């Protein structure tokens, strides 16, 4: 059922077995799992059913890092959270993404891909996707009748992506949650801080406020904080009445290791040496096995180990030539092509390569509380400092070089990249992927992380976290499938506690 929190009495206490803070992908997926159980669940949502300017303003903050990063624009603060504008690109993380890699400091999850393997397929229908067959490219080429590229598997592979409609969680699951008698969705309910016992070992209650309404509190037995990659850290830092540096922050790690995918759109333009190469598997979405799929180019595990690189993927996008002189046609005959020369064609003589690169975990890249700026509730706002290191730049250069080499080796085209003109600085089109990760990282020790392998905050017996803030590393895949897989795993864990 839905509750308009603005109609509660001031200082009212809402009791429950489980309180989930945040009704985005993770929060809604978890709440659904408890429908029909004997658990009394409260799901707190800051906004209502629609976008609201004042509620959204609670996300504003200061950006002190790379100038490309808008702090408040790429997440949404109403029922459904950021799924209200996500793109719907889906793929699990690769097994290597979970490993501790000697070439990537601070890498390594306390769990493996195998631990999440039961949960990724369970997450699939939640995102309205088809069959779970990410590792079976042949299935998709067979079903579509479209060829994949003859890539050198020592370098680059074709990887399957699924396309969600994209599922707007707040719309698709609204009625289901509204009908559930044991789930109370409190709208317009902004969690302000967690209050603990004197040793900061147990969350006793949560202070909650409405913009145009009362302040009240929720008293749960168990808490899951699922407010997003930035806000999870902010709420822990704001909960500093007993734990003076913030809850779970004894080692100063909350907010650190902030990561986002590195985007170059395009990172590379390939000027074709031949016309008519069928790349539809990559640049178009296809209906297959009850869902929609497309393929990307991605690093192979062998190549990542050999070159000691961060993971990456490349989207092929039909966008026409973006450079002055499409040189591919100069080399057509060298590539054995004698048809109409690509030099004389327009739009069809090239394809753009959009790169998504995994960042290296960096403790100096972080979110923290502003010393001066406060929000509508007089809470300290966020400061975000997204930083990249020379490692990301050299990895981006090398990744694009490998792709360009492959197109030359296959005799299909020649690659142009702004980054090839000057490898000492990022091209002007550097972007963040809008995937906020890493600020409450999962680890096997409180010295190196904020939550343990069961997503429980170290030192706090009833506080769990959900979302991409847990990711110690982020691979190249979009985070939502892994957010959901972790959330479903956490759900099973919490159910098992009782």
């Amino acid at each position, binding site marked *: 059922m839905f509750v308009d929190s603005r109609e509660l009495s001031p200082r009212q206490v809402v009791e429950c077995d489980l309180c989930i803070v945040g009704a985005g992908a993770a929060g809604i997926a978890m709440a659904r799992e408890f429908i029909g159980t004997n658990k009394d669940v409260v799901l707190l949502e800051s906004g209502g059913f629609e976008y609201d300017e004042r509620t959204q303003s609670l996300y504003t903050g200061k950006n002190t890092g790379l100038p490309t990063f808008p702090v408040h624009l790429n997440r949404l603060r109403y029922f459904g959270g950021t799924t209200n504008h996500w793109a719907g690109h889906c793929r699990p993380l690769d097994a290597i993404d979970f490993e501790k890699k000697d070439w990537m400091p601070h890498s390594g999850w306390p769990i493996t891909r195998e631990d999440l393997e039961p949960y990724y397929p369970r997450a699939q229908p939640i995102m309205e996707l088809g069959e779970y067959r990410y590792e079976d490219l042949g299935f998709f080429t067979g079903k579509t009748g479209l060829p994949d590229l003859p890539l*050198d598997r020592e370098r680059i592979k074709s990887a399957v992506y699924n396309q969600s409609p994209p599922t707007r969680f707040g719309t698709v699951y609204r009625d289901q949650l509204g009908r559930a008698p044991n789930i109370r969705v409190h709208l317009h309910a902004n969690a302000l801080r967690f209050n603990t016992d004197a040793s900061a070992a147990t969350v006793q209650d949560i202070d909650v406020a409405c913009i145009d309404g009362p302040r009240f509190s929720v008293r749960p037995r168990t808490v899951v904080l699922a407010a997003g990659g930035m806000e999870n850290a902010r709420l822990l830092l704001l909960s500093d009445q007993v734990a003076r540096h913030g809850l779970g922050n004894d080692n100063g790690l909350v907010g650190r290791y902030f990561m986002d995918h590195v985007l170059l759109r395009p990172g590379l333009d390939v000027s074709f040496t031949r016309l008519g190469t069928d790349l539809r598997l990559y640049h178009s979405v296809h209906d297959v096995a009850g869902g929609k799929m497309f393929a990307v180019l991605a690093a192979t595990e062998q190549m990542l180990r050999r070159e000691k690189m961060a993971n990456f993927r490349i989207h092929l996008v039909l966008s026409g030539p973006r*450079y002055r*002189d499409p*040189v591919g*046609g*100069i*080399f*057509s*005959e*060298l*590539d*054995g092509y*004698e*048809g109409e*020369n690509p*030099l004389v064609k327009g739009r069809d003589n090239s394809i753009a390569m959009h790169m998504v690169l995994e960042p290296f975990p960096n403790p100096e890249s972080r979110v923290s509380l502003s010393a001066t700026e406060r929000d509508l509730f007089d809470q300290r706002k966020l400061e975000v400092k997204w930083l990249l290191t020379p490692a990301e730049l050299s990895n981006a250069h090398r990744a694009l*070089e490998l792709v*360009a*080499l*492959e197109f*030359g*080796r296959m*005799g299909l085209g*020649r*690659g*142009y*990249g*702004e980054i*090839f*003109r000057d490898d000492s600085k990022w091209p002007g089109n550097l972007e963040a992927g809008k995937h906020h990760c890493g600020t409450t990282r999962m680890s096997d020790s409180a010295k190196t992380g904020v939550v343990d392998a069961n997503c429980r905050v170290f030192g706090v017996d009833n506080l769990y976290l959900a979302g991409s803030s847990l990711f110690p590393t982020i691979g190249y895949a979009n985070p939502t499938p892994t957010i959901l897989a972790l959330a479903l795993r956490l759900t099973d864990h919490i159910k098992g506690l009782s």
Partner: protein
Amino acid sequence: MSNSHVEVTRRAFIRTLLGALAAALVPGCNVGGPPDREQLIGYLTKVLRHDEAAAGLGQAYISADPAMQALSTEQWAMMLLQRIGVDLNKPPAIDVETLRRKLGQQVRQDFADETAVFVDGWLLSLTEARLCALVYRYRNSAS
């Protein structure tokens, strides 16, 4: 066999025929025999069909390196031919099509071996970058 393949085969045959006729009409051309040094260099300059665009890349390729700027057309030709096992001083019986095919194979091998260079933002194989440099030097010295 597809129609497009028939068309390509016919086109290649006509091209070879025209090439042989042209060679017979050019003074000093050894019909059926190996080309001389000048002819072989001339063949190399014909491998890339869009020589103005190729020369632009060639100029960009050598612009940053004074040592490359000092190389003559003949030196570029020699370096190129060495890559495909042809001795400029002892040219075998070879034509432009065969040269193009051998160079094309070398280009793909370059990309496989990562024997490549960045030219004005483009990733080119070393062989094709040198071909562009040859075209630029040839046009530059001829004008």
